């Protein structure tokens, strides 16, 4: 295989005569907001306690949408936001449209319920094949910490993939340069051919604030809902019956050890803590 020699390109040298047609798809998920909620297991361990939960868009996805918008604003194109979920997922798609995405798609069908990671990736793949995307972004992980959809989707599409991406530079219409976050604060640089799938790490940019006015502006925009009838999907790959990996229950592990929790009045706690700091070498 021939390899063309790599030439460094700084930002201002990037050839901006791209056709102005970067088609970007960003996959987002509606999740309980862990900054706003304590997550607890419900009475019978079948689910987390969902009463009074505040939901929001998955934190990593927000960075992915911001990155897509910035790329589009630099080189032209469109940003489409997609979510797989029930009708409630529409609110996070609309929120990301208020950030500046051009359009949204909701993939929703009762037959999707109970899908495992592969099932979700198959559903998204079916939608991707209806379009003509150059770049697909996901968050590096979501509420379940699995970080699996992007890598699976890339493999199903036979596109290249890179995870934990914290830098994207568009080189030309056929390739991009991406930085990945690796151990010790180091960054691994790669050149990747388009089309490709990237999972985005937090901190890659500073996602813009979405105000109530922004939400209002997109309130009347239509978000098409696609289900099994609109997508070519083999039923054995999706839903509960297609899932090879299933969650049995939620529980809180009984941790034998764990912190000794200091109790008492503020003064008592502070005195105890200062005493501990002294003996353990925490005060110089």
């Amino acid at each position, binding site marked *: 295989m021939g390899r063309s020699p790599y030439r460094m390109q700084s930002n201002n040298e990037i050839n901006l005569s791209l056709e102005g047609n970067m088609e970007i798809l960003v996959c987002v998920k509606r999740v309980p907001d862990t900054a706003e909620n304590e997550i607890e297991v419900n009475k019978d361990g079948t689910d987390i306690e969902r009463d009074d939960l505040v939901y929001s868009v998955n934190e990593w996805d927000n960075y992915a949408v911001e990155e897509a918008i910035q790329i589009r604003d630099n080189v032209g194109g469109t940003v489409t936001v997609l979510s797989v979920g029930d009708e409630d997922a529409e609110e996070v798609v609309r929120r990301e449209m208020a950030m500046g995405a051009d359009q949204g798609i909701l993939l929703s069908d009762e037959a999707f319920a109970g899908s495992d990671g592969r099932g979700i990736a198959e559903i998204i793949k079916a939608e991707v094949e209806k379009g003509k995307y150059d770049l697909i972004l996901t968050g590096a992980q979501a509420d379940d*910490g699995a970080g699996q959809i992007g890598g699976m989707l890339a493999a199903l599409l036979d596109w290249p993939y890179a995870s934990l991406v914290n830098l994207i530079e568009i080189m030309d219409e056929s390739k991009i340069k991406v930085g990945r976050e690796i151990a010790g604060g180091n960054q691994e640089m790669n050149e990747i051919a388009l089309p490709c799938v990237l999972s985005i790490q937090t901190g890659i940019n500073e996602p813009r604030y979405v105000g109530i006015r922004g939400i209002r502006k997109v309130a009347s925009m239509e978000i098409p809902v696609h289900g099994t009838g609109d997508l070519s999907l083999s039923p054995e790959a999706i839903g509960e019956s297609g899932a090879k990996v299933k969650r*049995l229950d939620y529980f809180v592990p009984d941790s034998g050890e764990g912190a000794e929790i200091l109790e008492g009045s503020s003064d008592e706690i502070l005195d105890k803590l200062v005493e501990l700091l002294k003996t353990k070498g925490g*005060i110089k």
Partner: protein
Amino acid sequence: MAQTVFSYILHQDGKIDDTAFELISAAKKIVPDATAIAIAMGSGSELEAACNELSASYPEIWKIDDEALSYPNAEIIRGLLSRIIPQGSIVLVPNEHFGMDLSPGLSIKLDTSFLPDAVDFEGMEDGKLKAIREEYSGQVSTHMLCDIAQGAVITVRPGVFQADESKGESGTVVDKTADALQEGLPGQSRRFLEVVEAEVGDVDITKSEILVSVGRGIEDEENLEMVNDLAETMGGDVSCSRPIVDAKWMEKSRQVGTSGQTVKPKVYLALGVSGSFQHMGGVKGAPYVIAVNKNPKAPIFQQADVGVVADILEFIPMLNDKVKEAKG
């Protein structure tokens, strides 16, 4: 016949990563009488050294030696693995940045189940593997049932399984290079360029004996002032968790965790830090850990020696005053 369990081996400069020994313990918990095979890819003398070290711990080692593998490019390695791994095998990969890059797609290419970030295994139930994972940054755990009849790719969290240091094997090294590369090098659509080393900050927190580490609970950039004050009073340095760096409130060089710095202080005071495994993975050397968090369920309390359930915004100034008082 027992299922074959492959371990993907991470190594650098000829040294085997600790996870290679942890995966032995994990494999035994999945299939007690498993045929364990290590897979090591790389090039030249470094790979040679790695295989030598592995042969004391694994009965069989498959090596693939090519210059293109001198830096682990997940696209290339995924392609090679999908050519050589027999159908129905279980493949274990450490769940760190390379494993995350490689594994979800590998499960698709091998057409097997994918179980990410397993922290424990509890044997078989209804012919399926019962495993434990964590969700919501470790706030709750789940039991999973994973169908392994057609094999599985399982990523295993580093540091949770005891490393098997028995070294009682005298393993055979099998050269799989020709098998793996006979159709040429896969994964050409992604090319590794270079590793950009982290910038060195004004303070080297890896050398600090006292760290006052601040997390999301600080809420506002201006509140960092009280953390700086406390650290100064205590004679320590300020470090932080990932959200503080993401918000650009502190330099990356101050971040503790697997993607940041590995620190070895005597005392680690975690203020409003939830305590994800990625964060605590950067805290080494068994320091005395004190956690202050308003969420009594925060995973940090599992890791700390002593904890205070309190709002750090109120607690920090009070602690600062008390420490000043104590110093006289």
